[in-house]
């Protein structure tokens, strides 16, 4: 059966039918979305719901000979797959930018991050946090519970509450599965490509899914996903007992950088401007957090050691 399937797939890929099949799926999806949900983001957000089941049923009816392919493409991403995707992305990113060589720093960031993650609905993920050796101002999240902050951003911070705010924003992306949704969306559209990768190893499938290297972290999420992560960050830091204004303080600071500064180029390309984020936060927070008495913990904040001078003189 499997052989038959693979042969069918190969035939189907190399025939002129392939592009039209992919185009059909695309069109079907578009019609489907238009018909039932005018809001695309909501559609992507609803991938686990009834809608998804209906979509699978529709696709199977339309392509009765490709049930297996449809299954493979539209199935739920399991926890194992989510973590595997996250590891691949983070492993690639660390290939470009290694960790800061300071175990004490890394351990500290993991303690703060894990305590904040303890306040969210996925406390049982194996959360990993790290500071990477880049002067850029940025932070990254990858599926499965991976969060990285750059040295540049870390060295701007003054308190544990500010660090908690930054980590909480990234935790927000992980628990809302923002990146995973983007991947799933491209997966659905790239059905043809996915069928090819069925013949490849697991890592190769994941690598195909995330694109080249770690370029996925240079891809912008929907603006609404960023605003959502900001709102989650305020709540998680407050739940953790921190001063919930850590993230707004950091956004204030980032807002000072001019858009043509190399260190913020990627951040500004992939995120709404800090002023816009502060404005949205202001609107969502209202006066709810005005008399917040959470802790800032400046004294416990781990101060970065200066970079080790390069030897070779």
């Amino acid at each position: 059966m499997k052989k038959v399937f693979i042969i069918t797939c190969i035939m189907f890929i190399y025939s002129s039918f392939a592009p039209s099949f992919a185009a059909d799926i695309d069109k079907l999806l578009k019609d489907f979305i238009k018909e039932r949900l005018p809001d695309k983001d909501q559609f992507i957000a609803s991938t686990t719901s009834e809608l998804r089941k209906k979509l699978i049923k529709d696709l199977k009816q339309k392509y009765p000979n490709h049930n297996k392919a449809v299954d493979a493409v539209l199935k739920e991403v399991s926890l194992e797959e989510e973590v595997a995707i996250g590891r691949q992305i983070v492993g690639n990113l660390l290939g470009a930018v290694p960790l800061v060589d300071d175990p004490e720093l890394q351990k500290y960031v993991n303690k703060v991050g894990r305590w904040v993650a303890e306040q969210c609905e996925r406390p049982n993920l194996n959360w990993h946090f790290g500071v990477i050796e880049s002067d850029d101002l940025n932070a990254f999240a990858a599926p499965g519970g991976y969060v990285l902050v750059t040295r540049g951003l870390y060295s701007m911070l003054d308190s544990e509450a500010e660090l908690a705010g930054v980590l909480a924003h990234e935790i927000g992306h992980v628990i809302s599965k923002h990146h995973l949704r983007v991947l799933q969306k491209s997966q659905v559209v790239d059905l043809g490509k996915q069928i090819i990768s069925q013949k490849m190893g697991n890592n190769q499938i994941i690598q195909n899914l995330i694109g080249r290297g770690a370029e996925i972290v240079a891809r912008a999420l929907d603006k609404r996903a960023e605003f959502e992560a900001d709102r989650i960050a305020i709540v998680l830091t407050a739940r953790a007992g921190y001063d919930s204004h850590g993230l707004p303080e950091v956004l204030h600071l980032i807002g000072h950088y001019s858009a043509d500064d190399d260190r913020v180029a990627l951040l500004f390309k992939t995120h709404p401007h800090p002023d816009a984020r502060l404005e949205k936060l202001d609107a969502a927070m209202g006066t709810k957090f005005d008399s917040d008495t959470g802790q800032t913990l400046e004294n416990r904040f781990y101060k970065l050691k200066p970079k080790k001078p390069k030897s070779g003189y």
Partner: protein
Amino acid sequence: MKKIPKAAILLVMLLLSFTICASELNKPGVKNGTVLKNDSLKAEPFSDATEIGTIEKGRSVMILERKGGWYKIGTAKGKGWVRMLSIRTSKNPKRRLSPKGILELASGRTGTGTVVLTTGIRGLDEESLKTAKFNAQQLSILESFIVNRIQARQFAATGKLRAKTVPYLKEAKSK
């Protein structure tokens, strides 16, 4: 004869205001800011506190301290509290020199050891991200620093961090 005392008083006042400004600017943590939107100035950091004035968009202010979501600001009209998100802090170059760096600056020995800030890894540009190769060793180092839930709770207790119940925030309806 009549005019001199007036001028003297003015001069003294001016000098005094300068020294007050200077002393406040010298305090650690004092920042300047710009008002982002018209808002009311309150006597205390609460939304139902007495309104003691208003601040207009574009005005420069001195940020004296923060309490929760409020900044205590100093303006020409006086001091008061305003919501943090109505202010944008001004650029305040924070140069953090290590004690060693300060020593080197003082002794004029900068230039060799301290230029490391500009060396090292390239910025996170798209090209270097695209060509990034999987680094299993770095990944396993990252994963070796994992902190479990019990350790996280102990860490929180040491910092006197107490977990609270706070509901998630809804997206504000656009105006």
